[in-house]
């Protein structure tokens, strides 16, 4: 599975578990408007670390954090290069 598909599947899985209603996951959707809360993001980041073997939130060098779905995917793709 590509990084993109892994991330989108994990987002849906966490939303289901935490009983959150997700907005359509377009690349320009701001993370704050996805329907996930900070606990969901925390779980998502931990799951993605297991699935992808990377945690760019901990290792990010320049301190710039993603704010949309597209940026989140790129954030991981860059970390995995």
């Amino acid at each position: 599975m590509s990084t993109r598909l892994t991330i989108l599947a994990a987002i849906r899985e966490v939303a289901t578990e935490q009983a959150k209603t997700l907005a359509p996951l377009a690349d320009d959707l701001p993370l704050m408007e996805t329907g996930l809360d900070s606990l969901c993001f925390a779980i998502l980041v931990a799951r993605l670390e297991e699935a992808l073997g990377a945690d760019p939130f901990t290792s990010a060098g320049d301190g710039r954090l993603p704010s949309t779905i597209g940026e989140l995917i790129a954030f991981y793709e860059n970390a995995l290069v």
Partner: protein
Amino acid sequence: MSNLGTLFERTAAGGGRGRRIATRAFTLELDRLADCGCLGEGLARLDSRCVLLAVGDMAKAAAALIELDGVTRRIVLCPPGADAQLLIALARAAEADALVYDGDAPSPEIDVAIRVACRLPLAPLAAPRAARFVTEWAMPTSGTSGPPKLVAHTLATLTAAFRPATGERWATFYDVRRYGGLQILLRSLLGAESLTLTDPNEGVDAFLGRIGQARATHISGTPSHWRKVLMSGGAHRIAPQRVRLSGEIADDAVLAALRALYPDAHVEHAYASTEAGVAFVVSDGRAGFPASLLREDGEVALRVVDDVLRVRSNRAALRYLGAGAPALEDSDGFVDTGDVVARNGDRCLFVGRRGGVINVGGAKVHPEEVEAALNAHRAVRASRVFARRNPITGALVAAEVVLSEGVAADEATKRDILAACRAALPAYKAPSFLNFVAELPMTDGGKLVRHG
């Protein structure tokens, strides 16, 4: 001298012939202690000393305690398996100048003036007993890190909670060198017919077999010990009249499981700590304790300050040992237990340890309350909850679960358990990670190992 007498005198006053304490290796016949001992001529050299007691077998420890009380100024109860480094730290903390070591093992390499070997079987006393001290009994608190912190008790504080135990046959999973096990040992010496003790290399099934042969009526251990019994094929080798849990939070699930396993037994849980002593026993079969116990006019006074239980009684330790040690009691004579309680109507429930909280994005989670929710699921036999670091919330709740017999360790079970937790707990308290494990690590004291 205490007006209650020494441990030897009080053991002799416990009456009855044929009373005994048994480990796998030794049987200590209490009748014979009148003119026999385990320290030989070494006892005279320990007069007025401060003695580290570091023996292996618990029957040896019991025999040595009976000989040492009243003769030495201080006895330091060293945890089983203490290595030379820990013994040196204990000797320093307690200003010990003598060592009683196990005559069946090499003498530990530590620097003390006097060394005496402890050996069973009993041998005739070399000289008449000459007890003249109110001996201090020093023992480490159950804190996990840093140099050992010792508290001082006396036989009077250690036995203040006792009622006569004549004719009872006891068994315990505890080690008698720690407060909980020492309570059982002293109760037994002062009146019970027998006490069956564990051996460090003995499995649960084998120990249950020995308890069954001894026809023990009163059996005590931590909830973790009892969960092991519940998972053991040997659970029906014992037929207790009384099942007692202490040392950890007893949740409704383990209490109900033990009632179902031993329908003829009375299942109770006790609350005690090394510092505060025995505070109370709860006999109604439910987790926590009645809020009516929060009163200050009885033999044991209880109050809650900042959600933490404080206890005042004649069973508390005298003080912490060592120069510059903090005060054991507050200005009103209460000992701060560090155990967080929550009131729910007429019930108080133990929530966890003050220092043990997991901080999930600023919200506090006690591992114990999550474990109670997990243990309430019929598929779960035992669980352990701990923090997992997280860059978003600082930490998340993670859990390891031992499944009940016959439950499939699959994704469906995991989903079912987690769904039950999310229904019972706020979202941030429900585990975000759950792994199945074959068993959970236990400390030597029979408590679940907590992550640091």
